[in-house]
C-alpha cells in the first residue's frame, strides 16, 4: 500500500512550513520520514546536507539528537519524571553535564520554572505542551518537527502554545516543520503545503 507518492519538498534553513490535510492523508507519515523516524520505500531525504535514508537506525538517531527537536500532539512526557527531568532527557542522552541548568533555563523560558518539580499528571494540558516545547528546544535543534502541537488543547491554550512555539522559533532561528489542522497556526508559517491522498497539492 502506497501512503506517500511524488513528494518533492525543500525546506530552507530558518523557514517555517506547515503541512495540512485531512485525517489519513499521510501527514504524520511524511513528518516521520522527514525526521528520520521512518524510511521511505523509495526516494531520499536530505537533512542539513546529509542524506539520511541510507543511514542505519543508530546514525539517524545520532543526527536527531544533534539537529532535531520534536513536539507531539499527546505531549509524550514520561509520566514518572518531573517537568525538569523530562526536559533534561535529550541532554542526558547526549551526555551534557549541565543538563539540569539548561533544562531549568528552558522551563523558565516557557514560564514554568515554578512547576519544575511537578509530575506530568499534576500539570494542565497547556502546561504539559509547554514542557514538551522546552524539551524540544533545550538542545537548540536546527530543525523542529511539531505534530499537531495544539491538537489536544482548548482554544486559549492553543493560542498561547502557538505564540510560544513561534516566538522561540524566531529567537533561535530554527527551521520549523509543522503538521496541523489548526488554520490559525498554519497561517503563521511562511509556506503551507496541502497533503491529500499522499500527494502534495
Amino acid at each position, binding site marked *: 500500500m502506497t501512503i506517500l507518492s511524488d513528494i518533492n519538498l525543500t525546506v530552507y534553513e530558518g523557514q517555517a512550513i506547515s503541512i495540512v490535510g485531512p485525517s489519513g492523508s499521510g501527514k*504524520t507519515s511524511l*513528518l*516521520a520520514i522527514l*525526521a528520520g*523516524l*521512518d524510511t521511505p520505500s523509495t526516494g531520499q531525504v536530505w537533512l542539513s546536507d546529509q542524506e539520511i535514508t541510507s543511514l542505519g*537506525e*543508530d546514525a539517524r*538517531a*545520532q*543526527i*536527531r*539528537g*544533534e539537529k*532535531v527537536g*520534536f513536539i*507531539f500532539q*499527546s*505531549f*509524550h*512526557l*514520561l*509520566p*514518572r*519524571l518531573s517537568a525538569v*527531568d523530562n526536559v533534561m*532527557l*535529550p541532554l*542526558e*542522552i*547526549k*551526555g551534557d553535564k549541565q543538563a539540569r541548568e539548561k533544562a531549568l533555563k528552558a522551563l523558565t523560558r516557557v514560564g514554568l520554572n515554578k512547576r519544575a518539580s511537578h509530575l*506530568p*499528571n499534576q500539570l494542565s*494540558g497547556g502546561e*504539559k505542551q509547554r514542557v514538551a516545547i522546552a*524539551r524540544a528546544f533545550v*538542545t537548540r535543534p536546527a530543525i523542529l518537527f511539531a*505534530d499537531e502541537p495544539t491538537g*489536544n488543547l482548548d482554544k486559549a491554550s492553543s493560542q498561547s502554545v502557538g505564540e510560544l512555539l513561534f516566538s522561540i522559533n524566531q529567537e533561535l532561528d530554527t527551521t520549523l516543520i509543522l503538521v496541523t489542522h489548526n488554520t490559525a497556526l498554519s497561517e503563521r508559517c511562511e509556506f503551507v503545503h496541502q497533503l491529500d491522498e499522499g500527494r502534495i497539492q
Partner: protein
Amino acid sequence: MMQGLLYGIRRFPVDLRNSDLFLLFLSIVLAVSAITGVTFLGDRLRLSIKQQAAVVLAADVTLRSTAPIGPKYLSIAKGQELNTAETISFLSMTLHGGNSILSSIKTTTPEYPLRGKLKLLDFNGQNIDKPTGSPMNGNVWAEQSLIDRFNIGKGDSITIGNKRFLVSAVLADFPDRNDGFLAFAPTVIANIEDLDAMGVIQPGSRVVYRQLYSGRENQIDNFVNELQDLPAEVRIQRIENIGQQLGRTLDRSNRFFSLASLVTIIIAAIAAMISARRFAIRHIFNCSLMKIFGATQGFVLSALIGQLLLMTLLATIVGVGVGLIIQYILVDLLKGIIDSDLPGPSLQPIWFALLTSSCLIIGTVAPYLQQLRVSQPIRVLRNDLKLDYKSSFFINAVAIIALVFFLSILFADFSLVSTIIIGLFLVGLSLFCLGALMVKCCSFFENQIGIGWKLGLKNISKRRGESILHLVVFGLSLMALMVLTETRSDLINSWKQNLSEETPNHFFFNIQSSELDGIADFLSPRIGQAIKFTPLIRGRLLEVNSGSNQGTNSGRMIEREANITWYAQLPDNNSIAAGEWWGNEGESIQAVSVDEGVAESLNIGVGDQLTFNAAGMDLEVTVTSLRRIKWESFQPNFIFVLSPMVARELPQSFITSVNIPEENEQVVDEFLSRYPTVTSINLNSALNQIKTILNKASLAVQYMFLLALLAGVLTLVATIFASADQRRYESALLHTIGAKRSKIFQSIATEFFAIGIGAGLTAGIGAVFISGFLSTQIFELNYSPNILVLTGGLIFGAICIGCVGILAVREAVYAPPLLTLRDP
C-alpha cells in the same frame, strides 16, 4: 555504552517507583530471601556438623578395636607431631554401700579428649574448669544418674573391681558418648593407669580400645595413608565418615526446606514474569521516545542493562538480609532440635543469592531487551506501544527453560526440580479447571443481583484469564499451607493413635535369668500387666557365606556388632517378607531370621549362611526368612532372631517393655532400687522429644511455605497492576456517567472477595485430596478433613485477596474523575 549505563543507573531510583519494576524487584527479593534463608541455615548446620563430628569422635581420627591395639601407631603419630590420647572402655559393676550398678567405665590418658570438651561439676552443681584430662589416680568422675542412684555425696567412694575410687566430680558431659552397648549404662571416667588395679578385664571380656589422634588436615591425611597394615579387628574412623552420616541426615531434613524455597521461587518467578512484561510494555514507550531524542540502540540497551544490574545487586543485598533474618527465625523455631549455638555462615549462600537474582532477571526480562533495543521511534507517533505478541510464546518458553535450568543447578537435583514443576503444573491444571468452573458460575449469578455486585462479578468473567490466574497461583500457595497444617496435625495425632494406653513406655534390660521370677512378681501386681521377657544375646555377625562357593556373595567379612534374640513364635509386630517362619521346626534347625532392611543393605538373602560369634562360640546358621518389623510398636525388636535350637542354651540376659502410667512413676524408682543392676530407659521423654521434633520441624517448614504464600500475593498484585490502567479508566468512566464511589467500591470488593472465596475453595478442595492421600497412603492413618483448617483457609483466602485487591486498585475508586481521565 558507559553513558547509557550511567543514565540507566541514575534513572533507577525514579524508575523503581513504577509498580512494574518495584514488583519485579520484590519478586526477586522474595526468591533470594527464600533460597538464602535455607542455604544460610544449611550452611551453618554443615559447618557445625564438622565440629560435631569431631566431638562425636573426640578426635580427628580414631582407631577402634576389641583387642589391644599396641603402641606402634601411637609412635608413628608422635613422630609426625600429631596429638594422641587413649581410652579403654568396658561395662562393669560399680559398688557402693552394698548396692551395685552396671556402669560404662571409660579409662583415659590425661590428653583426652583431643576434640570437644569435658564438662565437670562439683557436688554443689558448680562448674569445674577442666576441659581435658583424666582423674587423678584413685579418683573417678561419675554421671549424675549413677550418683543419684547410689545417693553419693562429697567424699564418698565407689568400688570398681578390686579398687576403691573417690568420686571427685560429677561428669555432666563428655565427647564420644555413643559407643554401641556402652551407651545405655551410666558412665564413670577413671585414669587409665588405674586399669590394672581394678583387675576387671579378663580374657573374653568385652572391651573397646580406642586410640585418638588430632592434628592439621594434611598431617592426618599422611598418618592415615601410613595405616595400611591395620589388623582386621582395628577399625579406622575419621570425622569425614561421621560428617557424611550426619550430612545425609541433614540433607534429608533440609529437603523439606528446599522444597518450600523451590515452590516460593517458582511462584515468585511467575510474579516476576508478569511484572517483566509490564516493565517491557512501559519501556517500549520510553525507549522509543529516547530514540526520537537521539538515543542509539546501544545507549538504550546499556541504560536498561544498567538498571537491571543495579536491581540485581540491590535485590541480592536486600534478599540476603531478609534471608539472614529468616534463617535466624528458623534456628529459633528449631531450638532444641538443633544446637542454637551454631557457627556463623560462610559466604557461599551469597553466591546462591546472586545466581538466583541473575537467573530470574535473565530468564524473565532479558528476552524483552532485544524487542526494546530495536523498538522503532515511529511507534510513539503512531501510539503503537504494544509488545510483539508473536514473540510471547518464545519469551515465556525462554523464561521457563531458564528457570528449570537454573533451579536444577541451584538445587543440584534435576529430578526433584522437574518433579516439582510437573507436580505444580498438574495441580495448577486441576485448579485451573476448578477456577474456570467457578468463573463460569459467576456469570450465572450476574443477572440475579444489584448493580455493584453485578459489575464485580462481570469483571471476573470479563477478565477471565486474570481471574483464573489469581485462583490458580494464590490457590496453589494457600493449598500448600493448608496441606501442611492438616498433615502436621495428622502426624502429631498419629503418635497419639499409635500409642494406645497399653503402649510400653519403659524398657528394662540387663535382667539376669535368676531375676525373672522376682521381677515378674514385683511388677505384675503393681502395674496390672503380665510381664513378658525377651532374651538378649550379645554377639557379632562375622561373615556371610563363609567357606561357601555358592553365589557371588561368598565369604564376605562383615564384623558387625549385633543384639540377637531367639523366638519360637513370630511376634505380632513382625511379619514375614521372604522365606518362611520356622514354627515348630525351630527346635531342630540352625536358622536365623533377618530384618529385611538390614538384609538388603548387607546383601543377605534367604538361604545364605551367616556366622555369628556369641559367648565366645562361632555359630553357623542359615537364613530361612526375612522379617518386616513394625519399629513404631515400641516393643523390643531385633534385627537377627535365632531359632530356639541355636540360642536356647547360650548365655543371655533378658529385656522387657512395660507400660507404667506417669502417675505411677514411683514404681520405677522402687523397682530400680530393688534391682540396681537392671538398666531402665524411659520412653516417655523419647516420645515427647520425637513429638517436639515433629512439631517444631513441621512448623518451621510451614513458616517457609508462608514465603510461597507471600509470592502468591505478589503475583496477585502484579496481575492486578497489569490491568490497573484499564481499571482506572473504567472507574473514571463509571464516575462520569454518575456511578457513586460506594458502587464502584462495592464492585471491586465483590470481584476480589469472590476470587478470594474461589481461591480458598479451590485450595480447600485440593488440600482435602492431597492431605487425604498423604494421610491414608503415606502415614497410614484414617483421614477426616479438618474443618477448622479448611474454613480458616477459605476465610483467609477471601480476606487476603479481597484486601490486597482493594488496596491495589483503590486509586481507581478514590481518584477524582477528571484526574483519572486526564492523560498521564
